Every structure is written in C-alpha cells, then in structure tokens.
C-alpha cells in the first residue's frame, strides 16, 4: 500500500499542473471576463510540441521547456488576435462560443497531424527517487514543482513591478477606467493570452512527461480541471487559482486513494458543483460582492427573425414526408433519420440556450439519460418500446432538470461550465454504476423500434417515425414559445434582474425550460438507443453537445425552424459531400467560428 505521504505528494504535483492551467484562465478572466474554453487545447498543443522537441529534435530539457513555452505563447497570441479581438464589441455570448470553436479546431488539427493514438513522452530526466519519511519523491516531481514555483514567482514579479503588469492589474480591476487612463487594452489582452498560453502549454508537456503518455483526449479534461481550479479559487483571482489547483490535486489524489482510479474525474466535478452551489464567488471571496452592473439585453445579438412563410413550411413538410416514396437511396433516408434525431436535440438546446439564454454544454447527457432509461425499461422491465421511449423522455426531463438545478443561480459563462461538468458527471456515473448501467461494457441487444407491437423494420418506417416525432416536438415548442412562458423565458434571457423585479421566478422558469427541453432530448436519445441496438457511456459525448450548439447557432438562437434547418445542413451536408468523419468536427468548429464572427444571429435569426 502506498503511503498517505505519497498521495499527498502526488496530489500537490498534479495540483501544481492544474494551478498552471488555472492561473492562465484566471488572468484571462481578470482582464476580459471570459472563460477561455480553448485553454485545454493549448495544453494539448504544448504536450505535442514537447513530444516533437524531445523525440524528433532531441533537444535538451531546458531548450524543450523554452520551446514549448514560446510556441504555445505564439498560439495564444494567434487566438487572441484572430479569434477574439474581432469580437470585442460583440455580444457577451460571442467570445464564449468562439473559444469553444477554437478549441475544437485546435484539437482536430492536432489529431489530424499526430493521429489520435496515444504516444509516449519521455521525461529526459534520470529516474532518481528520494526517500522522504514514508514516501518517495522523483526527479520529475521536483521538476514540476520547480516549474510551478518559478512561473508563479516570475508572474508575481511581472505583475508587481513591470509597467505592462500594472496595466494588466488595472484592466482587471476596471477595464473602462484603465482605457481612459491610456492603457492599451489590446496589448494587455495580448500579453495575458501569451502568458496564459505559455503556462498552459508547459503544463501539458509536464503532464505528458509525468504519465509518460499524451493523447488528444487530454484537451477537454485539462480545460475542465483548469476551470474547476480557477472557479474554486474565485474567477479572476490569480493566487486563488494556485490554491484551487493544489486543492483539486489533493482532493483527486485522496479520492483515488480511497475509491479507486475510475472515480478520479468525478471528484473534480463534484468539487466544482459544490463550489458553484455553495460559494459561487470562489472559496476565498469575501461574502458579498457589490451588485452586478446593469446590462440590457447584451447576451445575445438582437435581430429580427426571418418569418418563414407558411406555404414554405407546408411544402417542406410535404416534401420530407413523401420522401420515402421517391426513388431515394436508403443511405439518404439514414442520413435524414440522423438529422431528425439531432433536430430533436437541437430543439431542446435552442430552447434552453437560445430562448432562455442558458448555454448548456452538457446537453448530450440528456440524450444519454433518455437512451439508458429507454433501453433498460425495454430490456429489464419488458416495457413496450414506444412507452419506453416516452419513459426515457420523462426521466430525462426530471433527472436532467434536477441535475442542472444547482446551475440555476449562475449566470452567463458559469452556466456553460456547470452544464459541461454535469454532462461529465452523468457519463462517469454511467461508467461506474455497473449494476444498473452495465458499466464500460455498455448495453447491447436493445430491442428495435416498434410501435403498437409492430416492428419498424424498413428504413422508410423508421424515417417516418423519427420525422413525425420531431415535427410533433417542434409544433409543441412553437406553441410553448407563443404562450406567456415563451415570453417569460425570453425576458429572463434579456435581463434576469428586471425579470425578477417583475415577479418572474428564475428557478421556476429555468426548471420548466429544462423539463420541456429534457423531454425532447430524452426522446431523441431513446429513439437512438433502439435504432443503434448498442449504447455505452461514450455513445453520447461532448462532441454531440458541441455539434448541437453549432446547429443552434447556425439556425438562429431560439429559432425552431432554424434548429431543424441547421440539423439538416450540418448532419446532412457532410454526408452529401462524403466528407471523412475525422474532418467533420474540424468543419463544425470552423463553421461555429465563422458564424459567431459574421452572422451571430444565425441563418433564420434569433427569436
């Protein structure tokens, strides 16, 4: 048995790495009130640059460190200059979406360049271990500690004594005042992104060396861990971020010691949810902050939605309803079935993210809950498939709303973090709750779709079924949007302070949106489960959440017709052009970036 001291050392070392990522996030949040979702991608880039340096170029360790820091900083500068600076005067949702898009683009570029297979990243250090009390400490541990302490010290000196450092701190305190005093905010942003990226890249390299393995899945995990550490320390608080990183490292290390490795990530996310719920301003924040500045409808782009004429809708409906009678291949039908399933997810997300303004990044979790519920109801309890799917929708509505409810008190970017974490928790619970979910093996032999005892065998019948369900959900949503509830959702999105002052309970209406949206997403997941006949904890993943978000932005936030058009476009077009699967996510990421930059209101406009 390894000693507690070992777990403590391990926790502090890993925590040191989290702290490096978190400090970068805190700096960026400080000056631009933005949670940089691309931070993990820079960490990934850093790890692979380290690999190139160590394995291909065979540089000595010191040069490797400099190279990784410099190259990562360059990536950070590029992101700032081309990804975010053009959005400076844009609505608040824009930079958030942009960093999400950038992260997907970067991850995919790394994956396409280096293949998704894991690689070994040797540490270049002699493998010496020192005995301390009951534990041991390796040379790499010391390196990581040194890099951590040196960076913290350099950063402290920089922020404290250099002119640019002052400018950064001034901007973080009051951006407008700093600008009026002649601070070049663009330069501050540049500096902050450069530093954050250098720290992020370094931490990626160090983690790669620590585990002697790097792979492209590191990115999302790193973003999440960094964000957890940063939020725990108090967003924008640099010393807090270091403390948060170390705390997270220790919590994970002790958690693993007690419960085992497969629970590692669960602790991080539970810590996040706990912090967000109990101390949303961070563990070190003073109890109550000044009330938030008044903001008026600046979260999403104002626009006039394009009213789709009734005849166009009826024609489109007729064409798609009659499609199986036309001489089309079953491949086209399969693609469209997939599009209809995504349309249900997008309907759900466009309600929550668009109409209500709660940008959920964990929406695939609702699919997973619906899929598992429906599959287990039909397999274990022999519930007829049609009823099981409705059951999936209801459980997804209830459980999803319950799980997301801690995030109801959060605003803006925090909602995205919380939902991302909740999505990860759901997938981890599915992985670990073996007696019910069958764990990593997944569920196989799920009965095929059937209606009133008749199996839907042909592609055409499945097509009609999914199309009909999707249209029904869309019509219900249109009806909801036309009611006082739709109006209330949009009022809360535009200005939650004014909405509360007029008697709108945020909890009540957020819950109603997630109940309604959770049902649609759950039904989509349920149908998918019976269609695929096999699901596991990875069937419904963050990539689907991001694709759904791109669909929603493409169609226009809150726009029901837009969600459907967007699904056909983003799910269907890559099939039509036969774009290989590995390029698709890259294309979704680029599409998201271009949309945010050039048409933030989407094709059909925000409602």
């Amino acid at each position, binding site marked *: 048995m390894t000693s507690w001291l070992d777990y403590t050392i391990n926790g502090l070392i890993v925590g040191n790495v989290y702290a490096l990522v978190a400090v970068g996030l805190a700096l960026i949040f400080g000056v631009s009130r933005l949670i940089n979702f691309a931070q993990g991608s820079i960490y990934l880039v850093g790890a692979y640059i380290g690999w190139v340096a160590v394995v291909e170029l065979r540089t000595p360790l010191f040069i490797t460190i400099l190279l990784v820091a410099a190259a990562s900083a360059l990536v950070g500068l590029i992101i700032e200059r081309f990804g975010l600076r053009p959005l400076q005067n844009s609505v608040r949702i824009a930079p958030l979406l942009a960093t999400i898009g950038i992260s997907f683009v970067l991850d995919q570029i790394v994956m396409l360049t280096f293949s998704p297979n894991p690689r070994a990243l040797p540490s270049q250090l002699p493998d010496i271990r020192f005995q301390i009390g009951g534990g041991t400490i390796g040379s790499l541990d010391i390196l990581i500690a040194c890099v951590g302490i040196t960076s913290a010290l350099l950063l402290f000196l920089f922020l404290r004594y250099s002119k640019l450092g002052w400018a950064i701190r001034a901007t973080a305190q009051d951006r407008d005042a700093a600008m009026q005093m002649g601070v070049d905010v663009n330069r501050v942003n540049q500096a902050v992104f450069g530093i954050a990226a250098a720290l992020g890249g370094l931490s990626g390299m160090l983690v790669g060396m620590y585990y002697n393995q790097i792979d492209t899945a590191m990115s999302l995990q790193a973003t999440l861990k960094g964000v957890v550490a940063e939020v725990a320390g108090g967003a924008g608080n640099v010393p807090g971020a270091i403390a948060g990183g170390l705390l997270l490292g220790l919590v994970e290390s002790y958690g693993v010691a007690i419960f085992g490795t497969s629970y590692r990530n669960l602790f991080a996310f539970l810590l996040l949810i706990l912090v967000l719920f109990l101390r949303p301003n961070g563990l070190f924040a003073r109890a109550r902050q*000044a*009330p938030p500045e*008044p903001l*008026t*409808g*600046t979260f*999403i782009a*104002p626009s*006039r939605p394009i009213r789709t004429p009734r005849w166009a809708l009826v024609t489109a409906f007729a064409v798609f309803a009659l499609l199986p009678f036309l001489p089309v291949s079953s491949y086209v039908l399969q693609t469209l079935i997939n599009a209809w399933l995504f349309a249900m997810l997008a309907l759900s997300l466009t309600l929550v993210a668009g109409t209500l303004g709660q940008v959920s990044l964990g929406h695939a979790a609702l699919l997973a809950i619906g899929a598992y519920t429906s599959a287990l109801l039909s397999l274990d309890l022999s519930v007829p498939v049609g009823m099981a799917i409705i059951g999936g929708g209801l459980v997804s509505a209830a459980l999803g709303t319950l799980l997301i409810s801690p995030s109801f008190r959060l605003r803006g970017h925090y909602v995205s973090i919380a939902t991302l974490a909740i999505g990860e928790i759901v997938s981890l619970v599915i992985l670990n709750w073996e007696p019910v979910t069958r764990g990593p093996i997944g569920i196989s032999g799920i009965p095929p779709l059937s209606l009133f005892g008749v199996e839907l065998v042909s592609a055409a019948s499945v097509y009609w079924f999914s199309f009909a369900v999707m249209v029904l959900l869309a019509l*219900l949503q249109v*009806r*909801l949007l036309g*009611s*006082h*509830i739709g*109006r*209330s959702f*949009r*009022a809360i*999105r*535009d*200005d939650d*302070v*004014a*909405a*509360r*002052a*007029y*008697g*709108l*309970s945020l909890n*009540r209406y957020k*819950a*109603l949106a997630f*109940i*309604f949206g959770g049902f649609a997403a759950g039904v989509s997941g349920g149908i998918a489960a019976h269609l695929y006949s096999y699901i596991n904890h990875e069937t419904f993943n963050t990539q689907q959440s991001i694709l759904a978000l791109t669909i929603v932005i493409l169609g226009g936030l809150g726009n029901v017709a837009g969600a459907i058009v967007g699904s056909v476009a983003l799910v269907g077009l890559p099939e039509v052009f036969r774009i290989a699967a590995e390029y698709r996510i890259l294309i979704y990421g680029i599409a998201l970036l271009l949309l945010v930059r050039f048409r933030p209101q989407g094709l059909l406009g*925000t*409602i």
Partner: protein
Amino acid sequence: MLSLRGLTRRFGGLTAVDRIDLDLARSELVSIIGPNGAGKTTLFNLVTGLDRPDAGQVSLDGQAITGFSPERLADEGIARTFQLGRVFGNLSVMENVLIGAHRRLRAVRPSLPLIGPLLELGLALWRPASVRAEEEQLREEARAILARFGERLLPRIDQPAYSLSYANRRRVEIARALALKPRLLLLDEPTAGMNPTETSEMQALIAELKAEGLTILLIEHKLDMVMRLSDRVIVMDEGQKIAEGAGEDVRNDPKVIEAYLGHGSSQPADERETAA
C-alpha cells in the same frame, strides 16, 4: 404605507445607505434628490429586493418585507423602473408590458405547490378558454396603458424594444411598471436623457398617476419637476438623509446647498443639476 427604519447598506468601507428612515403615506408622492453617488439607487435596490440591507427594516402596509426576494416584492405590488433603463431588448413593446402584468396571470398559473409549475406548462400548451380570455384581457389593458403615451408607443407596439429611441425605452419601462397594477411605484430618474418636450410629457403623466391616487417614490435630478410634483422632498448625501420637507424649504436649506455645491471637488458639474 411604506416605512423604512434605520436602513443601512455598506460596500466594503463605504456606507452607501446610512440609517435611512422614511415614511410614505398612501397616494403620496415623495421625491429623493441628492448628488450622484448619494445612495439613492442603492436605497431603491434595498426596497425592491435587488440588494439586501445590512441593517434596518422595510415594511409595507404594516407587513415586514425586509430581505424579500424581488419576485416576492413584485407579487406584493411593488413596481420600479431602472436608472439606466432595463427593457427586454428582444421582446416587442407589447410583450414588455405583458411581462409587467405577469404577476396578475391567475388562470394560467395555479398557485399550487410542486405541481403548480407543471400545470402552468400544461395550461400554456393546452390554452383552455379561461387562459385565452385572461391573456386577451391583459393585452387590452396593455394597449390602454400604451395609449397613455399618445402616439409615442402605439404605432411601435410590435417592434422589438431594442429598436426604440432612448426616450421610448424609458416609456416602455413605465408602461411595464403600470401593467403590474402597483401599490407602490418607484421611478428612478424617469426623465434622464430626455429633452424638454419629452420631460414635460413625462411630468404630465406622473402628475396624472398621482392624481389617480398611486403612491410614488421618485428619484429625479430635474428640480423644477421635483418641486412641482412632490408632496415632500428628501435630500440624501453620502448615504444619509440630510433634509426632508416641503420643496421650497428643502431648496433653501443650507445643508442641501452645501451638498450640491460645497464639499470639495468630487461633485461633477452635472448639467441636469445645475439646470434647476
């Protein structure tokens, strides 16, 4: 009907609202004036639940309402407008006003615990006759309220609020507040940024509301208007109440003159203040 006792709010070292006592009788119009940063808006936030006092009590018609949530206070009949104007930008003028009437939705919002929200969802989707009738009645009322602003808002009833002029957005805010059918109306600088014509229109409207018996608490910088409308004036400076009384008495109070013109250089020469 409204009564504040020792209301206090501190931000760090700064006491934004310092032991304020205030009593407001039914159908009375009381104005709060004072230099920028005197704590007037913070006081409004404390009364409407957007901020919570560190000490002191608020009561409405004898009922203690200190620390109630804003939505609860809206239900109690307190409506307010905001200093910088907070309309719902993507909602139409009509929808903005209907949000004001939200607390009066009865048929579609059964007041049952737990299943109430689910019934509300069901009723919103199903829309039985009672729900439709209620919505139609509120729309009628909203049109009547908008008609009080002459031709300013009626022709723009279906336009999104973000497309309106600044003055029209302020009007929408007041229309939204009136749709709540308030017991107590708090107006935070309703004429800020308005030209003289628009200001006198607004003044006439407020006088009309007062004549109808509405109880109003008004923050305003334009002293002419304050003098004409108010039953009483309260002057705040640095969080404290420095004077209270009839308009002219307050105007000639040396403490008030000092607050506006005196102590140091920190007071900006605000046109709106000097204009009076």
